[in-house]
């Protein structure tokens, strides 16, 4: 299929009533959730401040911090997956390269929005950039996030540049936007594209340590350096953080790829989905192993706070976040699905495992934040009792809707869809056969 035909095909697809309806429902529901979320944001966060949350001095961090590290993990994981394509030239994953980059950017923006909510003085937020305490992991993170976001945007732009020039020249819908985005550089000669690829590779390679040690390992370290909380204060903690980032990033890429194909009634490339599924299995297994040691050694120490934290996690009113979300949805069930021969070769089952993982990792992140804080630091101080307020819930859903809106906008207006590419197109045809 040539590129013009492909574009025509897609334009035709969009006119299809089924798709039009789907899109209308998608946008409608997202906008409703987003608007309600923003109303709650203004009413709660901006007018009442932290009083609109259930956060206390015992549990000073809650749902918003958990969701912040959740999206940070999503971003780092998606980006690392994209480096397989752009950093290491594994072109069999080409079709998820750009959407992985886009989801990495969008997740990062969402993560920063969530952590912005957790700041008590939004008017002081630029102090975080002006003053840099070199012993503070959080200060390092703030700067790493900015750098990382810039690398992501540069990567995505470079990977799209060829298509942007083509779209600007075709003078189709929105060609002026694409024309602007080329910044007057229409050079798509073999030499120019080769240079592009070189830069993509360089940025990808720079991005790998940045994502692993800077962004994600660093975010894990924010928690791990808190020696007041024995459950967090382990060397393994940042590593588990990185592993669960890889898990959620891979799962997200699988889910986006398969769902997009289902919406446009295209056939998914089974071999690629299977390979991604195998990767997910690997990451999940390593994560399980690390968690085993984390719990074993923590428990073996018989430290009161550690034991109380594990008890809070596994058998308090929050038991289900651990057993159902963390262990069930984000660990055992996907592993079983991905191990059984019949299910691990089915796109639908792999998609199910990916979606379960994406949902389950919320529980993983929650358990990294709340239970270690519920246990008081000194025997005799009050125990924490945290459950997000309605305002926290609604605002969180609003921001998640914002994340999906941003992603959909990106998919709609930017040449993210890889099957439009010549190489991708050929491969896609082959897969369809």
């Amino acid at each position, binding site marked *: 299929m040539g590129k013009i035909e492909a574009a025509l095909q897609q334009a035709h697809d969009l006119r299809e009533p089924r798709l039009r309806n789907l899109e209308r429902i998608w946008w409608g529901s997202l906008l409703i959730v987003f608007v309600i979320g923003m109303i709650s944001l203004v009413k709660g966060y901006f007018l009442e*401040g*932290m*009083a609109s949350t259930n*956060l*206390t*001095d*015992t549990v*000073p*961090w809650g749902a918003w911090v958990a969701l912040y590290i959740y999206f940070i993990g999503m971003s780092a994981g998606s980006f690392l997956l994209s480096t397989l394509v752009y950093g290491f030239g594994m072109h069999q994953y080409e079709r998820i390269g750009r959407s992985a980059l886009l989801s990495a950017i969008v997740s990062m923006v969402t993560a920063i929005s969530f952590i912005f909510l*957790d*700041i*008590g*003085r939004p008017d*002081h*937020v630029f*102090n*975080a950039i*002006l*003053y*840099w*305490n070199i*012993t*503070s*992991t*959080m*200060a390092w993170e*703030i700067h790493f996030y900015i750098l990382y976001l810039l690398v992501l945007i540069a990567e995505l732009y470079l990977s799209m540049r060829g298509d942007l020039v083509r779209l600007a020249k075709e003078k189709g819908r929105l060609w002026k936007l694409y024309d602007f985005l080329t910044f007057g550089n229409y050079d798509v000669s073999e030499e120019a594209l080769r240079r592009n690829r070189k830069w993509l590779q360089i940025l990808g390679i720079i991005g790998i340590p940045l994502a692993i040690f800077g962004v994600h390992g660093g975010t894990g370290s*924010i928690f791990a*350096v*808190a*020696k*007041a*909380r024995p459950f967090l204060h382990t060397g393994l903690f940042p590593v588990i953080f990185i592993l669960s980032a890889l898990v959620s990033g891979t799962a997200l890429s699988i889910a986006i790829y398969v769902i997009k194909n289902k919406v446009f009634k295209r056939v998914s490339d089974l071999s690629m989905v299977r390979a991604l599924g195998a990767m997910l299995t690997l990451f999940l297994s390593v994560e399980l192993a690390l968690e085993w040691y984390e719990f074993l050694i923590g428990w073996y120490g018989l430290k009161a706070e550690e034991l109380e934290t594990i008890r809070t996690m596994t058998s308090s009113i929050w038991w289900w976040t651990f057993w159902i979300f963390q262990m069930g949805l984000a660990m055992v069930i996907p592993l079983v699905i991905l191990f059984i021969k019949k299910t691990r070769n089915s796109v639908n089952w792999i998609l199910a495992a990916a979606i379960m993982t994406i949902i389950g990792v919320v529980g993983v992140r929650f358990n990294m934040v709340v239970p270690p*804080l519920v246990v*008081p*630091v*000194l*025997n*005799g*101080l009050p125990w924490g009792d945290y459950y997000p307020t309605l305002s926290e819930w609604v605002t969180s859903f609003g921001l998640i809707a914002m994340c999906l809106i941003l992603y959909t906008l990106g998919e709609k207006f930017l040449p993210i869809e890889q099957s439009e590419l010549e190489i991708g197109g050929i491969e896609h045809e082959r897969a369809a056969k």
Partner: protein
Amino acid sequence: MYLDIFNKMLESELEEKRKLLETSPYSTELGMQMAADARKVMNGQMEQKEFYEKYAAPMKKEFGREWAALEEKPEKNKKKGPRWGMVIDLAKCVGCDTCTVSCKAENRTPPGVSYNVVIEEEHGSFPNVKKLNLPRPCMQCDKPPCAQVCPVRATYKMDNGIVAIDADRCIGCRYCVVACPYGARSYDNGFTYEHEMLGWEDVQAPEFGNDRGPRTKGKLPEGTVRKCTFCFHRLERGEEPACVETCIGDARYFGDLDDPNSIVSKLAASPRAFRLREELGTEPRVFYLL
């Protein structure tokens, strides 16, 4: 530059320096040398102190008495001020919570913020029960984990040993609350006692010597983290912290831990003394006597 001009003027006016000096009964050589070195001092090529050291002995020999000595200027901040510390005698504490109440009154802390609490613990089972009251102010650690993690250096260690918070810089991320091993930090949610105590908002405690006027919704220190200041504003006017002054059993001692003769230093050296969670290496400046 002017120095050069004056030097040249002198050279031209006083051509016969040596002859002039020889008319005096004292050493010509010394005079010439001193003049040369004095010029060096003026030009900054020689330290004043060095000059005095060099000529103190020859001048005494020549003139028969101590002629000049460098005036010892007290260097700014050379004398270290006190480094505050507290000792709490648990055997004397009756658990009356006066310290908590007086702290609240002195610092006018809002609902939900209490710099000082008394933790009550019961050990053993009936009839062998022992009750322990543990007053807990901020430990003012010498290696404070809160200052270590603060992303903007809003909380830091002062020279007098107190860990301060700069509310004007604090972004309210509450990382320090997570990092504090003593639970000694609170976040100011902006709550008020105004509805049960008219005029409560009219005055705020001048924490760290900073009078912020009446407490206003949305104004600092709301939205930032707050903690015990060892009543810095009281120390500055020569008073003890409120909890120390009001303790009914005189269980609290306050003073300079750097001064080996102070009561706190002596008590802190007692075999009864211990510090909370010493294994974390935070080096608290609050000692307990058991």
